[in-house]
């Protein structure tokens, strides 16, 4: 069925695409190790965050927290804001996004296009600082509705009810699930669902490693672990630098023709590492990983150009 009542209704059911050229070759006689990309850019506004945004707004409407004409507040580095902005526009809410000032220009353009108001938080401190500023604003403005993707169980549920079941239906032989660690909603929700279906599955987190700007925090206690995070869901966790992420984004583009955003490169890097371990061990594997969004919003960073390398990401929040 490809007919939908509205744009929102077309959420999810994204394709799971095989990577026959990027998947490592097993030795003769050994079982295959296969990589599968779940293309979340095929969502209404082009990212996996449509799932989170629609789930959080639906939940807030259902519980009476969100009344007609209300103002929604959210800390975001872009994708969640863009998703919320579209839905808020269509359903008649106002949206205020708190966003680090060092994100790509396309994100601001998209947010403003759908009528969102942006409050910038200082680059130093990255998303942590945006979360802190948003929490302060929520305290000062009690009539604003703070959906808070980092601690809202509806975010996790969106992936428990959507992303996880979709992957399992398409790939019942899945052995590894690899996704990015931001709010942790994808890994917690889809990870829990997939483990219920296959207790032996490996749930693997890949988190982007940002530059000096973000890690130059005032003190270590300013660190941030999202309320949704439950370490028991995760099997292994990798921190992937800008250089490896950019290299993998280009590989995905050049070898399989898939044009992804930069954080998806970090996720692919972890997936390929795991795939190589499986080949070395002579075991078969079906490894599904998330492509969070397409590359459109990152063109202005210059990484896709012939001479584009990870250095252009210095000082930018790239996921």
């Amino acid at each position: 069925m490809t007919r939908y009542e509205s744009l929102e209704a077309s959420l999810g059911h994204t394709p799971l695409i095989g990577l026959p050229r990027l998947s490592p070759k097993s030795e003769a006689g050994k079982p295959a190790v296969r990589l599968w990309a779940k293309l979340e850019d095929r969502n209404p506004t082009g990212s996996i965050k449509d799932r989170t945004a629609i789930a959080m707004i639906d939940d807030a409407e259902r519980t009476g927290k969100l009344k007609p004409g209300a103002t929604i507040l959210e800390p975001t580095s872009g994708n969640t804001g863009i998703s919320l902005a579209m839905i808020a526009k269509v359903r008649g809410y106002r949206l205020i996004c708190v966003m680090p000032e060092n994100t790509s220009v396309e994100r601001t353009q998209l947010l403003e296009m759908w009528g969102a108001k942006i409050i910038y938080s200082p680059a130093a401190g990255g998303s942590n600082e945006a979360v802190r500023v948003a929490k302060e604003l929520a305290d000062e403005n009690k009539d604003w509705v703070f959906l808070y993707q980092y601690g809202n169980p509806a975010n996790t549920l969106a992936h428990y009810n959507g992303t996880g079941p979709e992957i399992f239906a398409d790939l019942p032989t899945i052995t590894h699930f690899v996704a990015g660690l931001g709010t942790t909603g994808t890994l917690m929700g889809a990870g829990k669902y997939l483990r219920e279906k296959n207790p032996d599955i490996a749930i693997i987190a890949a988190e982007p490693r940002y530059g000096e700007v973000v890690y130059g925090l005032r003190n270590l206690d300013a660190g941030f672990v999202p309320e949704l995070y439950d370490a028991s869901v995760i099997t292994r966790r990798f921190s992937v630098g800008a250089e490896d992420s950019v290299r993998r984004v280009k590989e995905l583009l050049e070898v399989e023709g898939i044009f992804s955003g930069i954080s998806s490169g970090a996720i692919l890097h972890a997936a390929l590492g795991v795939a190589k371990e499986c080949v070395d061990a002579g075991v078969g594997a079906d490894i599904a990983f998330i492509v969070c969004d397409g590359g459109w919003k990152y063109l202005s960073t210059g990484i896709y150009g012939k001479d584009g390398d990870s250095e252009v990401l210095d000082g930018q929040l790239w996921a």
Partner: protein
Amino acid sequence: MSATTSSSKIEVRIPTILRPFTNGEKVVSADATNLAELISALDKSYTGLGERLLENGELRRFINIYINDEDVRFMGSLTATLKAGDSVTILPAVAGGC
């Protein structure tokens, strides 16, 4: 196979916030065969660093340590083993792009 206890040189990347302890050095090195030994060795060379990483004998909540990009919390934490040539990175926990 017999267990070996010989030490190995490990490279450690220090985040901006902790560099005052390492005289501004971004990368330092120490001999160790597991993470607990490494932190103890670092603290000997750079007094006070250990306390910034550990609390009551455990990794501090907002500290993440990675061995070759993999989070030690899923590798046995302080008992995670190290071998010559391993690269260790210390980072404060940071919210991702969302």
